[in-house]
């Protein structure tokens, strides 16, 4: 596997990464957004989005991928995702009956993207938390991989 000290010369992997990264991102985001309509959801979509980090690492090496996705920001974003989830879950207490209760679900036609109330937002929050969290973990492990001392 390529090391962060070695310049990337493998054009096949690089062009494959260029090609597949957008597909992975779009597919992952699609799965997150359609969590309430189709199989999958926040967690699964988030992991697929995080796979973009792997692709960029394979194509461009550690340095490029860690400067593209800044680990510190990813770490904070994960906490923000978790806070967003608890916020939308607490809305259930304020507006209806219970924690995690879906509220505002009477909007739109069933089957549409915006038709499900806060469950959609909770799903998006989970997706955000997972994509940042898993992305951060991947970067962390690749960082250790390049580190000869560890």
């Amino acid at each position: 596997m390529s090391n962060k000290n070695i310049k990337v010369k493998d054009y096949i992997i690089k062009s494959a990464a260029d090609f597949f990264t957008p597909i992975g991102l779009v597919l992952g985001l699609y799965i997150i957004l359609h969590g309430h309509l189709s199989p999958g959801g926040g967690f699964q979509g988030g992991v697929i989005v995080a796979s973009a980090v792997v692709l960029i690492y394979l194509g461009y090496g550690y340095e490029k991928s860690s400067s593209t996705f800044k680990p510190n920001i990813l770490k904070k974003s994960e906490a923000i995702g978790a806070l967003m989830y608890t916020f939308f879950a607490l809305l259930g207490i304020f507006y209806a009956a219970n924690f995690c209760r879906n509220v505002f679900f009477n909007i739109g036609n069933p089957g549409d993207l915006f038709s499900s109330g806060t469950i959609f937002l909770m799903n998006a929050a989970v997706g955000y938390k997972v994509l940042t969290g898993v992305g951060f973990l991947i970067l962390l492990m690749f960082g250790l991989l390049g580190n000869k001392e560890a």
Partner: protein
Amino acid sequence: MTQHLPILSIISLFIGAFIVALIKEKNEMLRNTIVLIATFLSFVFTIMMYRPIILEGNILTYWMGNWEPIKDWAIGIGLEVDQLSLFFGLFISLSIVLSALYSFRYIERETGKDKYYVLFLMMSASVMGFIFTGDLFNMYVMIEIMTFASVALTAFRNDRPEAVEAGFKYIAIGSIGSSLILLATVIIYAQFHTLNLAQLAGELYNNYTAITIFALALMIVGYAVKVFAVPTHFVAPDAYMVAPSSISMLFSGIVNKAAVYGILRIIYVVYQSMNLSSMQFLLVFWGTVTMFIGVTMALAQHDFKRLLAFHSISQIGYVLTGIGLTTALGITGGLYHALNHTLFKGLLFLCAGAVFYATGTTDLDKLGGLAKRMPQTTLIFLIGAFSISGIPPFNGFVSKWIIYQASYEAGYAPVTIIALIVSVMTLASFIKVAQSAFFGQLPKEFKNVEEVPLSMRIPMWIMAILCIVGGIVPSTVTKYLITPAANAVMNSAKYVEVMMGKEFASKFYSNLGSAPVIDYKLAGYWQPIAWLILFGILLLAFTLVAVLGGFNPKKFSYADEEDAKYDVFFSGESAEFSHVGGSDLFWGLKYQFRHYFDFMHKIHSGLVNDYALSVVLTAAVILLYVFTFVR
């Protein structure tokens, strides 16, 4: 509002953890404020449940997202707080607040404090979630969060190699435990297609097959690994020793207690209709072995916190024995001891932390004479030591007495005798600690140590006062805390009825609504106030004799000064010229039982492979036992 209290007390800690993760590491003031607010809110929410649940005897149920059971089938995740859950919740949330308060100054010199508090709050929140949930898989998830947070906190001082090593051991053994719990959960789910504890209790009522018994055995072993019952305890001393003291306190105070709660919940609620007396021998035997091996290992230790860790194992043995007796009195004693153990062991760990904060070491060979420099810590330590050894006006005596009485009444007289001996040995080893850390000569390098700051003393004093209160008014504590909890343990029909509805419960239980009355009388003459007065008189007399005998607290005596009082003495035959230091007060005992101690040292090899093997062997033995005897 009342119905939301369980989720609020859990989620406030989780929100605190996520907010702390956002704050910059340098911003200490803001972070401490948020940690304090989050833990305190959780404590307040738990206190607010006291009135409806314990005083009025209700059980709170809470269905996440209003997913209530349909046609007697629980689909959603439910929280259910009964008297037992709340009893555990009360002292757990209290020790979380105290530990947070203590941490602020205690870890001020460390780096990575932001991570510390995130993990701290995650661990606390997961324990609260574990206690309040009514869902088998939720219990697994929470115990997993708890394990991983505690592993990371064990390795918090990662500049010390032993901390990283202990973290590795903990993650290996802890994961085996979690895997067993997960396997059991999966088996039960495959059998009954539900995870709700109340529904499972109904479905399992007099409906045991080989596979559910298998799940029971796995579950018990899994939680025993989390409790650190004896053949699985090897990780505990390592982990407790290297973790920061505020965390060691939580390990023994809340992580262990959560697993005790798990065992109680599984045996007395989910598997309530099995022949409990077949379980009795296993748990009593296991608890007795745990308390004995824990205390003998503690006698041989030279490190303050490692010694406390072995005592923690030993005291958990008492709790296991108490709850394993399956009588009302035994459960009362076990629960009382669980509460007391949280108080006095937390107190002692905080004392060890104070000593570490002041001197930078917890090695008993290096310490000495700290009573002159740290009088309050010494006083608090003595209160904790008296409590844990069961000296009359303190709380440890009451709970141990109930356990002695219960084990004797249940026909386990040998257990009573062993429990008494273990109590004596506990006192002996704390005399050793007091003698080598707080009394004797002060080494020169500790000439300038100072008493720990106020914010560290406040939690210690609160726990010390609670220790005394628990010993002086045992009947009040029993009436308003322990008996309702013990009642809830004995009356699992009500748990099922409230969670799943009367219709569902009446399919299985014929005696709905009738709780067994717990009525008992403490054996022997027992007057706490008289004991307190006697204790005060003895203390006064002791002080008087000491002062008249020329004791001068102002005069310091350092280790390298000539003082006949502290002369080295020589004794024994082959060990003729051995120097007997304060931390080796019981070398004679160790010499007499050298074969036993050699064997013990060989077992505690420090190799994680051996430890994992012992967990697997335990699982095998428990499986054999459960398949043979449990019906």
